């Protein structure tokens, strides 16, 4: 029974710490900061997407965002 508790604690700690190192560090954002990584990098592609969303889903906008990805603004 005691061993069962022991393993339960070990598993809980392992599961809890599994997500501790997720995410991109600020100095690793160089790829995300590239212009071609923007949601609106290609104007033609953006126009096609906008048209599809507008005609099929009756929604528009929300394709771009401000900021270069350095996490300082």
């Amino acid at each position, binding site marked *: 029974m005691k061993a069962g508790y022991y393993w339960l604690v070990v598993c809980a700690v392992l599961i809890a710490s599994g997500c501790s190192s997720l995410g991109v*560090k*600020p*100095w*690793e*954002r*160089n790829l995300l*900061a*590239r212009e071609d990584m923007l949601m609106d990098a290609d104007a033609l592609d953006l126009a096609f997407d906008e048209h599809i969303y507008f005609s099929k889903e009756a929604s528009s906008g929300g394709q771009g965002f401000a900021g*270069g990805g*350095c*996490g*300082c*603004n």
Partner: protein
Amino acid sequence: MRKFLLVLLLAVSPLKAEIYNISQLDLKSHQGKVVYLDFWASWCKPCQKSFPWMNSLLEKYPSETFTIITVNLDAEPDAMHQFLSKVEANFDIYHDPSGRIADQFEIEGMPTSYLIDSSGKVVKKHIGFYTRQVDRYEREIEELL
């Protein structure tokens, strides 16, 4: 004539940044001076904006009591060299491609800078660089000098 040649020589040979490996960084060797420690990367626009200001600090404050140390966090050294061929840097640069030191300093954004007093204690931390706050940054340095 000699004076003219000296002026010409100084004009054509501006102070250039020395680039070191991060393993060579020894902050303890700078104890006794106020240190402005800056973490930057070539792709970060605010970092680029801070360079002329950091150069001006070196002219403003005496080198006996103040120094600037910067840590570059580009994974690719070529990106750093390309950046430095365009932007003037008159201070030492330590290249930390794996972000080992950045991790230790718990960098939250780019650029991040630390103001370290003459006893080696971190006094201030700035996340980002804002030209409108330059006066405040300088006031904080002057309080420590």
